[in-house]
C-alpha cells in the first residue's frame, strides 16, 4: 500500500511535468510581455492577461502619464468613450445685447443683491440658496489622465479652441474636445518653475507663468508663450514680465482674453498681461472679439453693460475657494459662467474654505441656471470654448465638460465619496491615491489605532502608501482591498462618533464602517476596511485555525466557520447574553434573564441541557456536562476576598454537588478559578491588573500586570495574555506575553503596538484581538496572529466582529 509520502511525491511529479510543459510552451511569451514599456503596452496573449495588466500599470506609473482605462493594459493615450456635448471649434462672436425678458432678466444697472429671507432655488432663475441647493450637474467625461505633479487648481489648466491644456510639470497634455490626448514636452529652460494661471489661445499657444530660480529678484516672473504645435512646439517663443506678487494664489480661470492679449479677469493687473502671438512668436494679426465680464458683489455683467445678471445668493458661510472668489468667464454659445461656494465653511480655521460649490450658467437672455458641482470635482478652466471640470484622486486626473445637464441620480455625499474614493483606489491597487484619501491627519500612530494592522509596514509617516501596498498586496498582511458595491451614510443615531460622519461601505457579501472627517477642507477616511462576520470563513482560512465562532447580533445568531463549512445558531430569546463555548467547540452556552436561565446546545442547536442559573464554566463532555454555578455570598469583613458558594450541577438531572469555591470577591478585588483539562488556575487582582496562579499558589505571571482574560492552550501548558508594561496607558495592554504554566517561565513577548482586547491560544497560534480604540467595548479592528512557539507576528487580519471562540 502506498504511503502518503509515496502519493505526495508522485503527485509532485505530475505537477512538475505539467509545469514543464507550460513553461516550455510559454516562457518566451511571458518574457516578451515583460519587455514592453513604458507608455505603450502590447497586449500579451490572453493567458498572460493578468500579468500584462500589472506590467502595464507598473510601466505606466514609471512613465508618468497614461490614460486609465478600466485597469486594462493601456494601448496608448486614449480618449474617454464619451465626448463633450458641445465641441466648440471657433470662438463665437460677441452676442448682441439682449433686452430683459422677464422679471428675472438682467437690468441695465447693477443693483446690489439683498436677501432677507431664505431664497428658494428656482432652477433656472437667478436665485440660489445653500438651504435648497440646486441639482448636481452631470460632468460630461472628456478624458482621464495620470499626472505626475501639481494640484487640480494650481497645476494649470486652460480651455482653448482645440481642447483643454493641462500643464503638468514640464509637460503639456492637450486633450481635444473629442477626448484625444497628446503630450508636448515643454522646454523648461533649466530651473524654471511653472506656476498657475495659464490661459491658451488664440491658436495653439499656451500662456504659462514661469518663475526663474533667481535669488536676487524673488518676485520676477514671466508669461511665456509656448506653441503646442508647429516647429517650435514646446519652446517659449515670447515672454512678458509680470510681478509674481499679483499672480500667485489665484482662483482657476483668472486670466481671460482681451482684444489683443491676455487680461486679468480678477483685476489685479490693468491692461494686457501678455500680447497674443502665433506659433512662431509673431504678433497675432486679428483682434479677438471675446466678451469680458465683471462681478460687483453678486451681480455679474458684461464689460459693456449690455448684459447684467443680478444673482440672489443665500450663503451658509463666508467661504470661498482656496484662492479666493472666482471671476466670471465667457461661456460657449454666448453668456457667461460663474461659480461660488455657498455652503458652510469647512471648519472654523482662519483659512477655512467654503463648501457646496455651485455654478451659474448665465444665458444671453439674462436668465440663469444654477447647478451644484459634484463633490470631488472643481471648475478648473472656463472660456468661450468650454467650461472644464477636473477631479483629482492621487495621480489620476479626470476631466469633464460642465453643462447645465443635471445628474439623474444624486451623487454621493462627501463622506460617501471619500470612502468610495479610498476603497476604489485600494481595489485598483492605487496606493498613492488611497493614502491621499486616507488623509494627512491619518498618520498619527497614537490617534489611529485602526492603522495598527499596517503599523509594522509603516516605518515612517511618508510610507503610508507603501504600507498600504504591503497590506493589500505584497507583504505578510491581509486586507479586504476590494471594490465596494456601494456606500451609504449610517443613520444619524447609529455609529456617530464625535462630529465625524460614519459611512457604511457595502461590499458584495459584507459591509464595513468608516468614519470620515476633513482635513484642511479635504475629506479623509478613518478606518481601514475590516472583514465582518459575513466573511468568517475567509477569516478562518486566512488565520489557519480549525474553527472560528463569532456573534452576529444584527441577525441574532452565532456564526460558526470550520473546515467543513459554515453554519449559524439562532438566538432563541431576545435578551440572550453572550455565548460561551467549550474548548472542543461542541457545546454552546448562553444565559437569559433575570431570572437567569442557561441553555446549552450543540452546534446544530439541539438542546443538551438547561438550568435556571448562570453558568460560570461548563465542565465534562457530551452527555455528561456539569455546570459550575456561583451564588452570591456574604462579602467577608476580612482583608481577603471572601469565597462565594459554588456548586457543580449535573446539567442533565439538575442534581447539585457542592464544590470548592470558583469565585472570591471583596469589593474592588476578586479571584476566580479557571479549569483547563485537569488543572486549575486562578486569576486574582483588581481593576488595576491581575496575576495568574496555579493551584499550588505559585504565581505564573511573574511581575507582569495581566490586563486581559488569560488564554490557555488546550492542555493548559501555556498561558498567554495582554500585559501592561509595553504600554504608556495604565489600562491598556499592547504586549502579548506567553508563559509556561508548569514553571512560570517567560517564553516570549511580542509588542503588537495596538490595544489588545484579549488573546486566544491554539496549539499552533496565538490570536490577539486588536481593539478599535483603547476601550475594548468599542470593538475589534483586527486579529493579530502570532506563532505559538516564538511569538513572531505572522499575519494581521483586519476584522470587526464579536469573536466568541477559536480552536
Amino acid at each position: 500500500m502506498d504511503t502518503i509520502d509515496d502519493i505526495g511525491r508522485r503527485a509532485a511529479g505530475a505537477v512538475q511535468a505539467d509545469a514543464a510543459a507550460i513553461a516550455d510552451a510559454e516562457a518566451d511569451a511571458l518574457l516578451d510581455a515583460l519587455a514592453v514599456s513604458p507608455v505603450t503596452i502590447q497586449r500579451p496573449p490572453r493567458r498572460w492577461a493578468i500579468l500584462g495588466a500589472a506590467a502595464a500599470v507598473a510601466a505606466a506609473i514609471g512613465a508618468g502619464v497614461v490614460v486609465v482605462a478600466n485597469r486594462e493594459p493601456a494601448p496608448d493615450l486614449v480618449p474617454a468613450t464619451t465626448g463633450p456635448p458641445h465641441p466648440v471649434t471657433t470662438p463665437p462672436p460677441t452676442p448682441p445685447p439682449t433686452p430683459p425678458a422677464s422679471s428675472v432678466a438682467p437690468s441695465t444697472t447693477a443693483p446690489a443683491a439683498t436677501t432677507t429671507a431664505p431664497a428658494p432655488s428656482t432652477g433656472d432663475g437667478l436665485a440660489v440658496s445653500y438651504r435648497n441647493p440646486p441639482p448636481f450637474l452631470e460632468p460630461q467625461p472628456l478624458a482621464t489622465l495620470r499626472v505626475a505633479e501639481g494640484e487640480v487648481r494650481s497645476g494649470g489648466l486652460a480651455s482653448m479652441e482645440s481642447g483643454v491644456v493641462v500643464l503638468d510639470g514640464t509637460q503639456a497634455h492637450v486633450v481635444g474636445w473629442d477626448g484625444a490626448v497628446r503630450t508636448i514636452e515643454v522646454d523648461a529652460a533649466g530651473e524654471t518653475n511653472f506656476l498657475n494661471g495659464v490661459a491658451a489661445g488664440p491658436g495653439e499657444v499656451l500662456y504659462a507663468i514661469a518663475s526663474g530660480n533667481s535669488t536676487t529678484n524673488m518676485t520676477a516672473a514671466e508669461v511665456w508663450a509656448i506653441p503646442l504645435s508647429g516647429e517650435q512646439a514646446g519652446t517659449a517663443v515670447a515672454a512678458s514680465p509680470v510681478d509674481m506678487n499679483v499672480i500667485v494664489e489665484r482662483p482657476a480661470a483668472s486670466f481671460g482674453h482681451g482684444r489683443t492679449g491676455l487680461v486679468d479677469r480678477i483685476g489685479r493687473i490693468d491692461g494686457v498681461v501678455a500680447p497674443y502671438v502665433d506659433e512662431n512668436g509673431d504678433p497675432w494679426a486679428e483682434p479677438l472679439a471675446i466678451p469680458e465680464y465683471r462681478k460687483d458683489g453678486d451681480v455679474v455683467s458684461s464689460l459693456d453693460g449690455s448684459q447684467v445678471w443680478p444673482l440672489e445668493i443665500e450663503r451658509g458661510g463666508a467661504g470661498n475657494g482656496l484662492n479666493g472668489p472666482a471671476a466670471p468667464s465667457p461661456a460657449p454659445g454666448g453668456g457667461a459662467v460663474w461659480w461660488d461656494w455657498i455652503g458652510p465653511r469647512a471648519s472654523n480655521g482662519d483659512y477655512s474654505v467654503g463648501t457646496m460649490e455651485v455654478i451659474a450658467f448665465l444665458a444671453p437672455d439674462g436668465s440663469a441656471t444654477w447647478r451644484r458641482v459634484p463633490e470631488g470635482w472643481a471648475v478648473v478652466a472656463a472660456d468661450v470654448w468650454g467650461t472644464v471640470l477636473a477631479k483629482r484622486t492621487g495621480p489620476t486626473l479626470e476631466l469633464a465638460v460642465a453643462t447645465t445637464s443635471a445628474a439623474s441620480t444624486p451623487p454621493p455625499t462627501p463622506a460617501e465619496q471619500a470612502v468610495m474614493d479610498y476603497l476604489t483606489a485600494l481595489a485598483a491597487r492605487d496606493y498613492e491615491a488611497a493614502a491621499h484619501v486616507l488623509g494627512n491627519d491619518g498618520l498619527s500612530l497614537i490617534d489611529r489605532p485602526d492603522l495598527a494592522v499596517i503599523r509594522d509596514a509603516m516605518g515612517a509617516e511618508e510610507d503610508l502608501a507603501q504600507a498600504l501596498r504591503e497590506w493589500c498586496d505584497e507583504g505578510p498582511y491581509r486586507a479586504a482591498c476590494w471594490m465596494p458595491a456601494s456606500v451609504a451614510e449610517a443613520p444619524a443615531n447609529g455609529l456617530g462618533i464625535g462630529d465625524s460622519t460614519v459611512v457604511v461601505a457595502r461590499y458584495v457579501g459584507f459591509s464595513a464602517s468608516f468614519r470620515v472627517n476633513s482635513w484642511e477642507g479635504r475629506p479623509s477616511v478613518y478606518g481601514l476596511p475590516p472583514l465582518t462576520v459575513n466573511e468568517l470563513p475567509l477569516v478562518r482560512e486566512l488565520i489557519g485555525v480549525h474553527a472560528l465562532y463569532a456573534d452576529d447580533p444584527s441577525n441574532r445568531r452565532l456564526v460558526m466557520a470550520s473546515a467543513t463549512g459554515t453554519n449559524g445558531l439562532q438566538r432563541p430569546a431576545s435578551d440572550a447574553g453572550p455565548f460561551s463555548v467549550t474548548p472542543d467547540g461542541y457545546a454552546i452556552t448562553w444565559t437569559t434573564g433575570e431570572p437567569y436561565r442557561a441553555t446549552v446546545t450543540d452546534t446544530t442547536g439541539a438542546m443538551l441541557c438547561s438550568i435556571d442559573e448562570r453558568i460560570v464554566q461548563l465542565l465534562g463532555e457530551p452527555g455528561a456536562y456539569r455546570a459550575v454555578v456561583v451564588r452570591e455570598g456574604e462579602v467577608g469583613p476580612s482583608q481577603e476576598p471572601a469565597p462565594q458558594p459554588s456548586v457543580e450541577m449535573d446539567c442533565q438531572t439538575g442534581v447539585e454537588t457542592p464544590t470548592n469555591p470558583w469565585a472570591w470577591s471583596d469589593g474592588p478585588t476578586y479571584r476566580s478559578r479557571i479549569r483547563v483539562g485537569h488543572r486549575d488556575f486562578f486569576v486574582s487582582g483588581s481593576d488595576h491588573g491581575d496575576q495568574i496562579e496555579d493551584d499550588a499558589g505559585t504565581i505564573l505571571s511573574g511581575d507582569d500586570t495581566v490586563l486581559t482574560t488569560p488564554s490557555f492552550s488546550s492542555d493548559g501548558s501555556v498561558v498567554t495574555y495582554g500585559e501592561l508594561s509595553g504600554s504608556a496607558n495604565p489600562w491598556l495592554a499592547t504586549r502579548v506575553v506567553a508563559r509556561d504554566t508548569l514553571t512560570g517561565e517567560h517564553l516570549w513577548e511580542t509588542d503588537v503596538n495596538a490595544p489588545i482586547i484579549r488573546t486566544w491560544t491554539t496549539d499552533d497560534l496565538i490570536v490577539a484581538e486588536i481593539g478599535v480604540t483603547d476601550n475594548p467595548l468599542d470593538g475589534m479592528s483586527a486579529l493579530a496572529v502570532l506563532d505559538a512557539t516564538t511569538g513572531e507576528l505572522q499575519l494581521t487580519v483586519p476584522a470587526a466582529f464579536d469573536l466568541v471562540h477559536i480552536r
Partner: protein
Amino acid sequence: MVDAGRTVRAIDPEFEAFYRRELRPMIALGISLAADREAGVDLAQEALLRAYRSWPAVQTMDKPGAWLRRVLVNLAIDRRRRRDRERRALARLAPPEAVVQPDPVSDRFWTLVRELPGTQRAVVALFYLEDLPVDEIASVLQISDGTVKSALFRARKSLAAAMQTEEVL
C-alpha cells in the same frame, strides 16, 4: 514636441537567467496552491512580475528564490480569498488545453492539499514539490522550524486520513 512612442526595454540577462531557472518550479508551486491549473499559472506569472519589478533589490538577496516562493505563497493566500471573483473571471476564459493527462490519485492529493489551512498547504507544497528541508521551508515562509514540523505533521495526518492510506511520520 515629444511623441510618446513605443519602446522595448531590454531584459537584464541576469533576470532572464533567474526567470528561466525559476519558471518551471514556480508554475508547479502555483498549480499546487491555486484553485486550478490556470490560476496557478497566473500566480507564477504574478510572482515573477514582482521579481522583475523589484529586480535591483531582489538580485542582491541571499536567497532570491526563497523570496520568490514566499511572494507566490502570499499571493496564493490572497488569491484564495478572492477565489469567487477569480472563478467568475476565469469562467469567461476558454478552458485550458490539457497538457498532461491527470492522474486521479495525484489530482485527489492536490485537491486535498488545497483544502488544508494556509500554512499547512504551503508547507506541503514546498516539501513535496521543492523537496525542501524543514529549515529552508521555514526560511521561505518566515516561520519557525517548529511550526513547519507541526504543520507538516498535521497535514500528513489529515491527508493520510482523507486518502485512506498510511501516514509516514
